């Protein structure tokens, strides 16, 4: 691979490229710098790139988790740390569950010709169309009065799994159809039962698809606000909910908000860097073959 050659491009092209990159990540960079500024610097008229970076805002956000007493945090809102833990638990568990369940369903649909791929694709698109704002009240009502799941992490996980399933099934199908059926037949000849075939042969082979799907599920489960806001009680609240709740009418603390925003953005950013290749294949597989 080291012998791979690249075309030479003219400098204008690179200039354009730099401009595009700045446009794409400029706002994120700005969020980062703002989160490192004191409020006085943020709201002062005189803008400058020269400022004293400070971790003050992060101290405020994470006050509960500091091993030292932050000197300038006058009032500690303990909810952020808890929300971070909730977000992680909810996002990870719902992602894992969605993948396993979705993968099994996609497999059944592809292999056993249950209903057409089209039905699933259509359902997926339809489900994507339902605005969460509308689902909110029915979901709350059902979760509360019929399932008794309100306020629990389990309840939130259930919605997220359900919300993400259609899309995951859709994406994974295109990966599973690519698994040669002969592999499964070979495994059957080798004496494997249906579940052995699935877990020992199919699942390991579609790992890239799983990775791609996981990123999308994670993104939704991590960022979702409306349903989490309705379903979570104070113990199961997630980070987006806490962010919105910290926007008071009386004083918007941009520094703290940007710091929270940064903290919220970090996991997806890491995810993106780790698995960017998979995201692309996943998206394209889903889109192109859908």
């Amino acid at each position, binding site marked *: 691979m080291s012998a791979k050659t690249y075309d030479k491009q003219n400098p204008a092209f690179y200039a354009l490229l730099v401009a595009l990159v700045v446009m794409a990540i400029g706002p994120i960079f700005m969020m980062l710098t703002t989160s490192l500024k004191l*409020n*006085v610097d943020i*709201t*002062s*008229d005189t803008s400058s790139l020269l400022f004293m970076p400070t971790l003050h805002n992060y101290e405020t956000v994470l006050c509960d988790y500091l091993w030292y007493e932050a000197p300038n945090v006058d*009032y500690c*809102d303990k*909810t952020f740390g808890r929300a971070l833990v909730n977000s992680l638990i909810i996002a990870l568990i719902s992602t894992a569950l969605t993948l396993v369940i979705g993968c099994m369903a996609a497999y059944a649909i592809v292999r056993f010709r249950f209903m057409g791929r089209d039905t699933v694709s259509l359902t997926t698109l339809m489900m994507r169309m339902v605005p969460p704002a509308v689902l909110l*009240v029915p979901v*709350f*009502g059902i979760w*509360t*009065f019929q399932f008794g799941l*309100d*306020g629990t992490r389990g309840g939130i996980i259930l919605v997220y799994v359900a919300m993400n399933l259609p899309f995951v099934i859709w994406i994974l199908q295109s990966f599973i159809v690519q698994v040669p059926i002969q592999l499964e037949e070979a495994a059957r000849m080798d004496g494997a039962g249906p579940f052995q075939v699935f877990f020992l042969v199919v699942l390991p082979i579609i790992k890239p698809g799983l990775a791609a799907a996981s990123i999308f599920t994670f993104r939704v489960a991590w960022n979702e606000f409306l349903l989490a*806001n*309705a379903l979570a*009680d*104070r113990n199961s609240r997630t980070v987006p*909910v806490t962010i*919105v*709740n*910290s*926007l*008071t*009418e*009386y*004083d*918007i603390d941009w520094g703290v908000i940007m710091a929270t925003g940064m903290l919220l953005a970090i996991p997806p950013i890491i995810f993106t860097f780790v698995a960017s290749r998979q995201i692309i294949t996943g998206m394209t597989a889903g889109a192109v073959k859908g």
Partner: protein
Amino acid sequence: DGHGGPYAPYAGTTLVINVPAHPHYNAMMKVLPQFTEETGIEVEVDQLQYLKMRERQTLELTKDEGDYDLISYVVFSKADYVFADQLENLARFFMNPKLADPAYDAEDLIDGYVANIGIAGGFKGYLPGATGSLFGIPYGSETSVLAYRKDIFEKHGIATPENYDQLLDAACKIPEVEEGMGGMASRAASGHQASHAFLLHLAPLGGRVFDDNWEPIINNEAGVAAANALKTIVDCGPEGSQTFGPSEAAAAFSQGQAAMFMDSIAFAAGFEDPTKSKVAGKVGYALHPEGVRRGSQTGGFGIAIPKNAQNKEAAFLLMQWLTSKKGDLAVAMAGGNPSRFSTYENAELNAKYPYSATFGEALKYADPDWRPIIPTWGKINADIGTTMSQVLTEGLDPQEALDGVAERARAIMDEAGYYTWQ
């Protein structure tokens, strides 16, 4: 464990209360430990942005068993909650000798607030009257005052506005004489904020949304005058005023971009905090200027016990403790907004917060009928808000705008059955 008296049976109970993220309730958080220490009752606080809090409560109160023992509600939620029979009538508790504190002195509570926030079922359904009863107690209630830059006003020899003419003159004069500074920072963002800003001027200028027969009169002269006043203020205000929510407006003022700010008293503490404000110490406070009458905002929050609460008695005890003379003073000293006349008269408080006297004075003019607190208000409020926003940003004619609002409001009221008896 040593907690005697009325609190003994409830020591060890944990109450869960739901309150907004608001300076007053931040102050409350500072006094709660005192309550726990005195009574042995633990309190867990769930703090939310107030509109989200309202959404959450709407859902929460429909449950059979609620999470919250005590809720703080936005004043206009009173109509919804009471109408849906989701709040406890406080009579039950005040009648209970084991719970009611004889020294409570309910008369000391600011009556405008009690009428506005606490009582339902009387005149027009949401005002006191022979048929009314008490469902909540004001806590963190607010009225509007005029905050202005003493230094700027002095520099240019402008007098503190006493009436609307002076106010509007000052608002537009300042940008001319003080470069880069707007006259008054006001809320104006589309929706609730613009509506709020409009109502702020409607009452003093003699207007009402409905007359006593529920006919919309928002489009009468007073209404148009209020709209024009708001437009003048916003046009002469600091840059970008048209999208200001209260926080941006307050920030504009505290960063020195506006010379006046007329809004809730709750902002005062922020202006005086030198870590956040550049104008600390330079701000003077005055009564909401008079139009054809005085009529300042009644708003803010009250506290109530949900029907589906699980520790109602203990919740009542907390409620009573918080709104008692002692509790009110404590929260005021911590930076909250008192709800009792006696607190405003307290010398200690006045020493710490010099503006308290002005606020106490302002409260006498708090107008309980500042806005109609009826279930259809949400829709009408939103309509006023978007229409006002159009007046402010798209040059829609105020009369035309308000005529439209009136027409739509009438349709809404009609549908809701307000004209059944006519």
